[in-house]
């Protein structure tokens, strides 16, 4: 079954026809040609598809596109309007916090979401009140990186938090 939805993607209103089974991730990648969010597992296990939905980080492979109608979607590409890198992106670049780059847009969106959650006082399992390395790592542990850039990712997120 096809249905038409409206999405605001990276600041632009988009109208798109989707299968009711289509995930937000596939709607972005296969119908809107926005390939910034990546598909690593399609089961919410790796974090590569992370985007910001109405400002909160979500796994877009676990969101049905039809439930995102009328909402605001920001991908990693949308964090850098006109090519101006977001502080998180700049910190990833400065600290070489990636290698192959496939998990990176998801890591970046996740970090933006995680820093916002921390500022709002949302607790984590780790429970530090400061953004220690362990606290950042806990909050970023939903985003897998097979290249093993974690040590630099933690440093980058800490740098971005100070920006």
């Amino acid at each position: 079954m096809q249905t038409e939805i409206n999405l605001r993607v990276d600041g632009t209103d988009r109208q798109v026809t989707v299968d009711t089974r289509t995930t937000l991730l596939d709607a972005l990648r296969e119908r809107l040609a926005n390939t910034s969010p990546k598909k690593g597992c399609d089961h919410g296990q790796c974090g590569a598809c992370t985007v910001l939905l109405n400002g909160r980080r979500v796994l877009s492979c676990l969101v049905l596109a039809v439930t995102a109608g009328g909402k605001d979607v920001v991908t990693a590409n949308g964090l850098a309007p006109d090519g101006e890198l977001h502080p998180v992106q700049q910190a990833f670049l400065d600290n070489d916090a990636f290698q192959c780059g496939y998990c990176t847009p998801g890591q970046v969106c996740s970090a933006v979401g995680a820093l916002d959650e921390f500022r709002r006082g949302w607790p984590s399992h780790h429970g530090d009140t400061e953004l220690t390395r362990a606290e950042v790592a806990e909050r970023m542990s939903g985003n897998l990186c097979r290249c093993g850039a974690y040590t630099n990712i933690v440093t980058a997120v800490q740098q971005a938090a100070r920006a």
Partner: protein
Amino acid sequence: MNAVGQDMVRRDGPAKVTGTATYAYEAEVDNAAYCHLILSTIARGQVTDVDVSAALALPGVLTVLTPGNVEKLAPTDDAELAVLQDGEVAYRGQIVGAVVAETSEIARHAAELVHFTYHVDEHDSIFTTDRDDLYRPKAINPGLEPDTSIGNVGEAVRSAHLTVAETYSTPMVHHSPMEPHATTALWQDDSLVLWESTQSVHSVRTDIAGLFSLDAEAVRVICPYVGGGFGAKGSPHGNVVIAVMAARALPGRPIRLALTRQQMFAIVGYRTPTIQETTVAADRDGRFTALAMAAYGQTSRIKEFVEQTAAPTRMMYAAPNRATSHRIAALDVAVPTYMRAPGECPGMFGPEVAVDELADALGIDPIELRVRNEPEVDPETGKPFSSRNLIACLREGAERFGWADRVAGARDGDWLIGTGVAASVFPAFTLRTTANIRFDHNRYTVELGAADLGTGAWTVLTQIAADALGVPVEQVDVRIGDSAYPFASVAGGSSGTATWGSAILTAADTFRDKYGDDPADGDEAENTFIGTGFEGGPYATYAFGAQFAEVRVHADTGEIRVPRLLGVFAAGRIINPRTARSQFVGGMTMGLSMALHEHSVLDPRFGHVINHDLAEYHIASCSDATDVAAHWIEEDDPHVNRLGAKGIGEIGIVGTAAAIVNAAHHATGIRVRHLPLTLDKLLAGLP
């Protein structure tokens, strides 16, 4: 103005942090169709009937590919690539069909509607060392002798002061790059364009052109970015053949095919489980009198790949008596392949734990024990080492890590604390590659079909080219990842930078010889670097390293943490410290992952990996690896190659697991000889 050695930011960085770098599935094409694979649900037998009627009745389905109902491929030795040529099933998860449809949702739905009838044969997928059909392979990867022997190990053991003779094992593990294997394929006007996630655009082109009886010129393979490979994308697998069949069935229609994460556990290779019967005998002073490993692994019945598990035992330490062997079980299982540091990664686990056990039994510091057994020359070939700085790595690592402060029985509240060390090694060699250099509008364009899997090739090759041409990096455009460029070797074997860099040096010489320092627009030169091949030259060429781990084990729960991992490497000239550090740290992090988590569990009843996703096949997460540090010593090796670079992509994973297991022993007194090091193996023995 040397660019080599500078801390240069990745050239592909901005595209990667914004997600605008395009991977294979994301190639910009119009009106794509989507292909979904169907895998066998039996481990051995034949497809006897396929009912595609329900699938074809689904609106939006374009075609269904089934055994015998596809174009005939040219004969090939590689049974993995001969997909759908007949109905034979040799392992569970083998490709038995595919659906092409207007959308990915329809393709996936229709794949479920294709009904297969099988004749089921009994299968055998149990890997043990007491099978009566183990065999000695003709050669082991990458073409080495399966068995070697010098002196008499048995006699040396009988007269030794102390011998550690233990069996160690590493489980089946999967590469699991974050980007699932993917292809966008377009067949149009009798030519084929493949956007393919691969470590070697040229080998994909050669294999595909051969299978489909096409001129190589009619096939173009494009791959500017690879979302991780680790060997799984080193040579093409059956999925790309299906993508090409689908594209040729629908001329003019681009076909997108991505594997699901689950499918990746069946059809793109894995590291064989290994069993390592390891012997280290020593005299009273800790000098090794014998070193031996009998290594066992598995392969698929339809294609042989033999992990060279005992290869590092042949060259790592001195000992007058030595022996290695490899025995293989050919099973009804998926096809194994090379995975990051084949041979060295699993094969340095047993020996490096055995050396630790021996040090413990002798009461000698494990670093000192390794120093005492440093060979003068490569013990088996007699070749001199081009450079060998293992001791320097151990000493520098000990200093940085604070090794001298280690105490047995350390405790911090409920946490038992220990430290461990292990050595790393990986061979350095170069392959054949051609590079082209063109001058235009005061810029130099350097082209070769190399690949950047996250290694930093885009960046380091730019640095090498700038120095080779004697110009600033800003004046150089390196172009890689396209078979339209000159032939380049695979991004594998830690040979990429040294090989491709050497080719650029060679081409730059030719360019300057022809045109001098003041070339005209359009001037162009090309040359080929031959490389050493896997056999190497007159020197034994290896990178070395030392890894140090701190392990904490919770006294009540057995929870295992690795708060600190430190590696020091001697790997020749480092081209870019920033990307090099990430390579080392990344390898070590994957080694930590192997040590603590990774285990593909094969259910022998069904012949497949049951934990085939990232929720059940655990890899290290961010919280596991917050302090992984790598350093290196300056090493000037004039013999290894003109660039002086040894390769750094794999050595970081070698030895890590042994260092962690040795640290866990130091913390708890419990010796774990079978990876992964999980808490169930510690709980019963905790104080």
